[in-house]
């Protein structure tokens, strides 16, 4: 057919294809058709109540389970506003025409539905949908029958039907699992337990009210005056775990309210958040991730929002400006809860800090007011064991810390021996927290300590001792020079340590490059060499011998240079091993040869 530039041809859309697309790619599970059914019914009742606010709306669901004779049928009935014949053509058979629907529902914000595709999603589980509906505005009822192959028919009904809509879904062979009473009952409760109109579910044997069993509603009073035990119990039911406590959440933006539960075990800050979110009281998703600020990874919540946009799949919230504002407001709720605990319930706060140390540290860094409140209760690893900052402050005037666990380990023993309190800030946030101290409290002084600083504070040898140790040190320098390690001798506690191997971050990096160069291929080995040649080599590893150690004293006294060489080699290797520094091939060789030489010497 030739068409003369007139745009009067229309695309033809294959309904089956669309449904498959929806069920396979947009929705996470076929169960969403339950949500669409409930949504249509609730919207219809809401629309009728617009004209008559005293109207008592209700929804009832009846299930005829599949049997050998009968394929199984689900009937959903509401006494809402109903559709006229014209509306039936518009809403039930046109896909994606949401604007008409908006006009129809006047103010779209009062309604849950948005995409105008709702009912058709039922084709995921059935081949035929029958809708019988009577509008307030129409003198007669209409029957619409739609089929999965994309065809439908509409006819007027003569018999008397009351205002409202009744939808019949006949189970498709193979979809029986979605028509079983226990499954369906749970699904309706899952999606609809917070919905505002009574919803009855009957399977022919019993009839229940599905929105009867909620422990609270999402109103401000409902949450604040709710029974504590019942709210905790509800959290346990929803997430299948115990919680320490809960925090009421409200945000004016987005009209959000709900409950944040405090998790009872340590959480990974980068783990996926999974919050349960209701949208206008209809279940939206169990895995909303972007509801709370990043630092709130120690919470799981159940919230309802009346004024936020869902994504097209209706299973996440749109990540827009409004949502960031909601995040901030919910963050405020969490902060005021913590502030209140710091003032009036220090026991609970300590319990939270003990489990969620990381989260609380992250928060303290973010907000100065919390920093001041929490700092005394935050635990740190120190050379004297785990202490809270409050305890540390009592023991020392200047807060001394190392920025890495490697450096901490090097000086841990000696500082403990001298009862000096040094903080290990190698763990996450600790360095930042300590370095923030002078900014917040002007009277606190902090000092970053490196192993080399520590050795600078050791007692020096006097002239006579220096004289005695001279030869020993000269020999040791020659032995260790090829290993890029310098040598010192001082006096320090504890005396049972013969020598201390010290390496700071920069020297460690160079050692790392040297070791890697030895295993790398030619290209990378030369590249690493060129890079490391130009890193300032002022920092070297250091072996500091302990003049107070009896073994060292004896070595200094010996005449055998050979023995001194072998011993220095062994002490060097031993200090490397003690500090978990893997030996490079040259050091491995040294270990072997010096051990054998030593045995040889003894024999």
């Amino acid at each position, binding site marked *: 057919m030739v068409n003369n530039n007139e745009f009067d041809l229309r695309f033809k859309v294959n309904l089956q294809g669309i449904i498959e697309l929806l069920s396979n790619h947009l929705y996470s599970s076929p169960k969403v058709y339950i949500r669409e059914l409930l949504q249509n019914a609730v919207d219809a009742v809401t629309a009728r109540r617009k004209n008559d606010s005293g109207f008592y709306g209700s929804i009832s669901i009846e299930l005829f389970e599949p049997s050998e004779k009968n394929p199984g049928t689900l009937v959903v009935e509401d006494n809402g506003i109903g559709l006229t014949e014209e509306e039936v053509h518009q809403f039930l058979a046109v896909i994606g025409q949401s604007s008409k629907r908006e006009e129809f529902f006047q103010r779209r914000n009062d309604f849950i539905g948005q995409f105008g595709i709702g009912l058709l999603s039922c084709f995921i589980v059935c081949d035929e949908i029958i809708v019988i509906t009577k509008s307030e505005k129409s003198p007669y009822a209409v029957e619409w029958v739609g089929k999965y192959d994309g065809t439908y028919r509409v006819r007027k009904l003569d018999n008397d039907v009351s205002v409202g809509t009744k939808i019949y879904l006949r189970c498709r062979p193979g979809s029986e699992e979605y028509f079983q009473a226990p499954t369906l009952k749970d699904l309706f409760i899952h999606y609809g337990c917070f919905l505002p109109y009574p919803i009855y579910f009957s399977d022919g044997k019993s009839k229940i009210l599905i929105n009867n069993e909620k422990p609270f509603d999402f109103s401000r009073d409902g949450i604040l005056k709710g029974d504590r035990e019942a709210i905790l119990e509800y959290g346990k039911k929803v997430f299948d775990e115990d919680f320490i406590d809960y925090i009421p959440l409200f945000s004016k933006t987005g009209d959000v309210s709900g409950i944040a539960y405090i998790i009872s075990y*340590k959480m*990974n*800050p*980068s783990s996926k958040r999974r919050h349960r979110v209701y949208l206008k009281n209809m279940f939206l998703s169990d895995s909303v991730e972007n509801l709370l600020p990043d630092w709130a990874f120690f919470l799981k919540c159940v919230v309802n929002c009346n004024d936020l946009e869902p994504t097209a799949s209706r299973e996440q919230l749109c990540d827009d400006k409004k949502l960031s504002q909601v995040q901030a407001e919910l963050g405020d709720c969490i902060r005021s809860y913590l502030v209140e605990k710091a003032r009036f319930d220090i026991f609970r706060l300590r319990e939270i800090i003990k489990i969620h140390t*990381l989260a609380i540290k*992250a928060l303290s860094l973010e907000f100065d007011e919390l920093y001041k409140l929490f700092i005394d209760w935050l635990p740190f690893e120190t050379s004297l064991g785990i202490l809270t900052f409050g305890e540390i402050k009592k023991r020392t005037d200047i807060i001394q810390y190392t920025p*890495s*666990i*490697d450096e901490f380990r090097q000086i841990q023993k000696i500082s403990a021996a001298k009862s000096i309190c040094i903080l290990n800030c*190698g*763990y*996450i*946030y*600790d*360095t930042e927290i300590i*370095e923030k101290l002078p900014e917040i409290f002007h009277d606190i002084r902090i000092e*970053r300590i490196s192993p080399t600083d520590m050795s600078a504070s050791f007692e020096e040898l006097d002239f006579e001792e220096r004289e005695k140790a001279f030869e020993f040190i000269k020999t040791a320098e020659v032995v260790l020079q090829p290993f890029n390690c310098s040598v010192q001798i001082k006096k320090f506690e504890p005396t049972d340590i013969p020598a201390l191997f010290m390496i700071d*971050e920069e020297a*460690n*990096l160079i050692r*790392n*490059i040297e070791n*890697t*160069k030895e*295993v*790398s*291929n030619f*290209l*990378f*080995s*030369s*590249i*690493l060499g*060129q*890079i490391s*040649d*130009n*890193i300032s080599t002022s920092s070297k590893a250091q072996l500091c011998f302990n003049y107070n150690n009896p073994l060292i004293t004896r070595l200094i006294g010996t005449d055998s240079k050979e023995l001194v060489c072998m011993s220095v080699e062994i002490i060097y290797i031993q200090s490397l*091993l003690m500090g*978990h*520094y*893997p*030996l490079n091939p040259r050091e491995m060789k040294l270990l072997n040869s010096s051990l054998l030489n030593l045995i040889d010497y003894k024999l």
Partner: protein
Amino acid sequence: MDGKLEKLLSEIDLMPDGKAKLLMLEEAARIADSQNDLKAGFDIREEIVHQGVFYGHHLNAIIAFSWRLAQCEKNPHLFDISDLLWEYKWIVEEIYKFPDVPSEKIEQLFEDMKDKYNREGASLRPYYCIKCKYLYSSGFKERAEELYFKWINSPRDGYSDCRACDIDNQVLYLLYIKDYEKAFEMAQPILSGRLKCAEIPHLTYAELLLPSLETGRLNDAQIFHEKGYKLIYKNKDFLESMSKHLLYLTVVDVNKAVNIFEKHFQWAFETHTIFFKFEFYLASWVMFTKIKKLGKEQLKIHLQKDCNIIEKYKLNTIDDIIAWFEKETTDMANKFNLRNGNDHFNGVIQERLKLVGFQL
């Protein structure tokens, strides 16, 4: 085996990304090595490469990668080289930022990368892209142009950068050849939020700051600054972007620029990646020159103890500070020029210094 490694790894597992995690991972790698546990050493170093590349410890990443590559080549029955191709492109991109690595080594590195991609049947798109970046950032305009077309005409595959990064890289090239209008157009899907990833739009905002000023898009520039700074101020991997924010503020609000300088100078001071250090030092040089031009002779600058150049080198006046940055920056530029056999970096310096007289 005493379970020490397992315990440490489970601790690391709980840690958020960043330097503390990197240092712990290196500790874990040392333990794995002392236990001769190749497999663990290999896996731990994969994480070191990630932490290093994305949190600003590039040298640590290069070291860990060299080790992984060596183990792959030595033990092909244990490790699969295809696992390294993705990292390889990051590493090459880090290495040419060290001027001490001579040109012929960089060419060899690119050849090796190309060879490995070819052997795995992978598209050369990442190879062309990174080589193009290397060439134009070293002043080889014509060779860069040739590779640009090869790059955008190569097919995408599993080793290609994500769409957002890919577009951002093209924006960068267009900015380099000063085709600003096309660059802004190209950046639209990123600026509208349609394309994003862990590093985009963070980088894009910074790249567009100065071009926005030059083309009179003052409101856009301010928005890019405000949004962009929030995304990058906690992660020193964005040091290069930070230099651009510093330059932008030098032009529009030099007081704020000083504040940013004080907060982030430590990143530049500590980094081993000379190219990034050069960018930030150059921006600082421009900033202090502007301050001088505004009539200031002295200024109190607060720097962290470890990087307090003011105290260490007794830089008492603005002139002293300018002289120090000038020396440091030109030294680095000379190294790059020497390697590249041209004077491209002098041009970069001259162009940046023009910002001192930029009139809004």
